[in-house]
């Protein structure tokens, strides 16, 4: 089974990701930003698929697009948006912003030129059929400890959020 039109899909998805990322920061309406972010996340899921990582792609859709972003929207809709819409965008921060962007861009270019040797030219391709199993084995085998620490961290975050949000328990 040979992949069809791979370069086309790659550039299409990459462009979509970039475009939606730009929309996220340029849209005045926060709900529109969030929707653009969802589009970007979905495009990323497509990129994961092209990397033969369907499990990651599926999780990306379920967790980010279907779960987290819905909660984002949930909160954004309840907050009064009208004030933020009237405010001028990139208010007095354009200088700092552009400096940071230039620095980050320079770093990326430097790494790309100088550090090519750091990256393997091609990774070993995992069989698509056993992709999910491999993820599972790695997570619950080799990286068991970090995985559990991450979950503990999330638990702490949840409790913190509850305590902060609820005035009277």
């Amino acid at each position: 089974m040979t992949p069809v039109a791979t370069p086309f899909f790659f550039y299409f998805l990459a462009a979509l990701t970039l475009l939606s990322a730009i929309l996220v920061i340029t849209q005045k309406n926060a709900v529109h930003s969030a929707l653009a972010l969802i589009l970007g996340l979905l495009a990323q899921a497509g990129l994961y698929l092209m990397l033969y990582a369907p499990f990651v792609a599926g999780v990306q859709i379920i967790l980010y697009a279907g779960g987290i972003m819905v909660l984002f929207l949930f909160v954004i809709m309840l907050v009064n948006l009208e004030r933020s819409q009237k405010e001028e965008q990139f208010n007095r921060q354009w200088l700092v912003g552009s400096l940071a962007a230039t620095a980050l861009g320079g770093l990326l270019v430097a790494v790309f030129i100088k550090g090519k040797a750091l990256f393997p030219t091609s990774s070993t391709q995992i069989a698509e059929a056993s992709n999910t199993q491999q993820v599972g084995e790695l997570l619950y085998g080799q990286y068991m400890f970090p995985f559990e620490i991450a979950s503990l961290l999330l638990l702490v975050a949840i409790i913190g959020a509850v305590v902060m949000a609820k005035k009277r328990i």
Partner: protein
Amino acid sequence: MPDSTPHPSPLELGTPDKTFLDSNELILNMGPQHPATHGVLRVILKLDGEKVLGVECVIGYLHRGVEKIGENRTYTMFNPYVDRMDYVAAVSNGLGYCETVEKLLQVEAPRRANYIRVILTELNRLASHMLWLGTHALDIGAMTPLFYTFRDREEILKIFEKYCGARLTTHAFRIGGCQYETYDGFERDVKTFVDCVPPKIDEYEALLTSNRIWVERTKNVGKISAADCKALGVTGPVLRASGVKWDIRKALPYAAYSDFDFEIPVGANGDTYDRYLVRMQEMRQSLRIIRQAVEGLPEGPIMAKVPKVMKPPAGEVYHSIEAPKGELGYFIVSDGSTQPYRVRVRPPSFVNLQALDLMVRGQLVADVIAVIGTLDIVLGEVDR
């Protein structure tokens, strides 16, 4: 005591301008056009999330000045108007009015007329309770009982139609008795009806009484204590569900009610579920009364001798009956002329609706709908 909150007018209430995290109140306007407010009731809800902080009822959309009309019509001419108040239980309205004027005139309706009045009024109570059950269940989301109750209510309306030609606003009674003798087969029709309905009521109860969701939606919802009921003047099934065994048919019997043997069902908790149970029991008791009345229907005249032009002596009288919604009273002042000097209607729905605020405080939006349903109000009567 349900202190009514200081009232900014709806326009002043405005929109909550605080942000989500420190905002407490949301003003939601329900009605006057809303599927669950049973007519043109407007309820302004003050919410904290889904929790109700308070409600304000805005009524009067259906105000027609019935009392003013009464002062400008003769006693006889005003009789059909009262049917338009609680149009779901028009027969009860007529009964109350006719009995009050009879009292003023010192006329007693003949025994047969009283029996016919009891039969029709109790049939009407059944019809009213059936309509209540259907719409109340529909408000809570159970769609099917509505159709079942309408099927059986139809039979009652058919009897009305055969008796007096009208189905809803019947104008069944006249001052001094009944205008119409029963039609041929009236007793058979009523008997058949009384025989068929108990299984139908079992059917409604099978759908709802032990339905888990129904119980969860109605138990401990809209609780009101007996003391609060008395203080607010709430009567009818709502009062009885709070544990007060008081029914005007027993306490101060009118028409022929003292001839019949029936129970006053009472509840214990005064919540929506108890009110449901009380009304279901009341339907069965009504059937009991109808059966006794139709079996013992006496022979005789149906109309007392009343003057063609009614001029009751100057004086005033208050008389009330147990309408399906509660105490329906008429206070009539006569100045000796052909027209009442003042007609005051004491509408049960109006007084009961006052308890809404007390009953829904601290509950959820969905409960407001359940409580409006369980109060069994008819806006025609609230606004008059």
